[in-house]
């Protein structure tokens, strides 16, 4: 029986935990199988949860979030017969599959779209807490935007310094309004529950929003340019499907593997012009071929643009 462990944000975090949950649910719905799921309550529980699940025979055990990396590194060796999967972090152990996403590539595409949709030449990015992971989104977005509009401007805000930063739609809305008043007409939110407020404020102002992680286009049809989807659900689904045969090593979910991408559906179809679509396809191809190398902020903590 596979198991899934959510990080502290909880499974309904409107972000990647929720995406993981959707993947597991899809697997359960399709196969009729059952799985165990756990939500973390505190830092100290991580190890407890891993060990308890491993001891009860759950296999594979998938966990979301970089915060598990340290503990998994410690625990995995004690349960050589159990397969583990960790998302957003690389853990070098023989029975661990590390799934990493190239958020910068997906964000790059979103940046390209934003540049083409923007009339003012100014777009915005709103992150939750100021942590490296979110800079990956920011930097990819900025690269894509600059590639299409070299003299355009990206406004950047982070919501806060406590976990409340992920759940403050009011502040998110206010940041969006501040960016809009500075000319931004497309705003990309990578801020969990805070993003809901961002997208709402953007829609209220008649501007365009870009969602994150799961497809959020339905939130404000015709005011959502797109969503940068990060297919955590696929990663979980695949892992559950692989079951005990989960392949150890690093699994890169990149643009090519459709691990990341921009969502285009009925809600935003009207906004995606043929030229835009062409640009997306072009960029996708070039990134795939390596012609465009989107810089990953995490490698050196710097961003080539801005």
């Amino acid at each position, binding site marked *: 029986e596979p198991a899934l462990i959510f990080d502290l944000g909880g499974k309904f*975090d409107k972000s990647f935990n929720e995406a993981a949950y959707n993947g597991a649910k899809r697997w359960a719905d399709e196969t009729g199988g059952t799985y165990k799921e756990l939500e973390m309550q505190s830092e100290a529980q991580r190890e407890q949860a891993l060990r308890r699940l491993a001891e009860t025979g759950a296999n594979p055990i998938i966990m979301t979030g970089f915060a598990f990396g340290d503990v998994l590194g410690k625990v995995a060796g004690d349960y050589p017969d159990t397969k583990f999967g960790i998302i957003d972090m690389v853990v070098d152990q023989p029975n661990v599959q590390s799934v990493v996403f190239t958020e910068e590539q997906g964000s790059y595409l979103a940046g390209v779209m934003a540049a083409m949709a923007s009339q003012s030449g100014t777009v915005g990015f709103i992150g939750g807490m100021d942590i490296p992971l979110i800079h990956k989104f920011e930097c990819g977005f900025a690269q894509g935007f600059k590639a299409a509009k070299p003299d355009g401007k990206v406004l950047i805000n982070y919501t806060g310094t406590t976990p409340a930063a992920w759940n403050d739609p*009011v502040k998110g809305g206010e940041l969006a309004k*501040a960016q809009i008043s500075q000319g931004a007409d497309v705003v990309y939110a990578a801020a969990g*529950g805070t993003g809901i*407020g961002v997208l709402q404020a953007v829609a209220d102002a008649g501007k365009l929003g870009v969602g994150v992680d799961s497809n959020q286009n339905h939130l404000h049809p015709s005011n959502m340019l797109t969503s940068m989807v990060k297919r955590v659900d696929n990663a979980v689904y695949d892992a559950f499907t692989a079951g005990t045969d989960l392949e150890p090593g690093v699994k890169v979910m990149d643009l090519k593997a459709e691990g990341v991408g921009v969502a285009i559906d009925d809600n935003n179809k009207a906004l995606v012009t043929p030229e835009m679509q062409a640009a997306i396809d072009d960029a996708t191809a070039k990134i795939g071929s390596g012609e465009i190398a989107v810089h990953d902020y995490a490698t050196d903590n710097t961003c080539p643009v801005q």
Partner: protein
Amino acid sequence: MDFATIIQILDSAVRLMTPLLLACLAGLYSERSGVFDIGLEGKMLMAAFTAASVAYVTGSAWLGLMAGIMGSLALSLIHGLASITFRGNQLISGVAINFLASGLTVLLGQKIFGLGGRTPALEGNARFGEITLPFADALRDVPIIGPIYAELISGHTILVYLAFAMVPLTWWVLNRTRFGLRLRAVGENPASVDTAGVSVTRLRYAAIAICGILCGIAGAYLATALSAGFVKEMTAGRGFIALAALIFAKWRPWSALGATFLFGLLEAIANRYPNLDLGIITIPSMFMNALPYILTVIILAGFVGRAIPPRAGGEPYVKER
């Protein structure tokens, strides 16, 4: 910084200060009556939840507002029971109320909507819309006054105007009415009120009820005006900031306006300048986010003297032991 930017920042400050102002005035009523209230946060949170839920279900922001007030009032009642009727510790009661709201909102939200404590997004009449004041559009192009009127003063939701109207109203109630006189007296020396033949209990309950109503409006404003629905823990510490503003304002209504405006303004400025580039160094976002708090401390240390709370504050009125 040009004039338009200043207007935009002030406009943002007004929106950000409104929940603080309402909560601050709520605390003012309660604390001037001698009942300390660190549960402002919890009451706002509960109100935000009930307001958003009912607004979603009924599609009416006004019904949502009523529900927000009810939700907050229910917690006020618990606080009253603990701190007035049973003469318990007001601080503990406040702490408990914060926990209670934090847990109950998500628990109920999950039970009702199954979205992990969120409510579905509110649309149309389920939210308070922005009001354009008369002549706002006509005056917009008049220099200076035009933008001030059209962009700063006009274009807020009704709750913002209500919050601002509460300031002179509160001042008037406290200083010009019988109720206000008694309310202030009961916070300074409840025995004086008791020996005058007026019920201390009833007065304090009345104060706490007003506190509940105002917190209710604040919560409803957060969930149904500023944003479009409830998200868990969405008050994000605003109740505590309101408490700080209340002390800062030395428990006075006009000063409360000033104090909350200051908080709103500092936050608006920090929002506007997320990375202050000082040429040599760039101040990281973390510190711009903390700027309102740092400046508060500096202002407090430099310009505001000792704040003396209402004399009977925090103590239950005990006649016989």
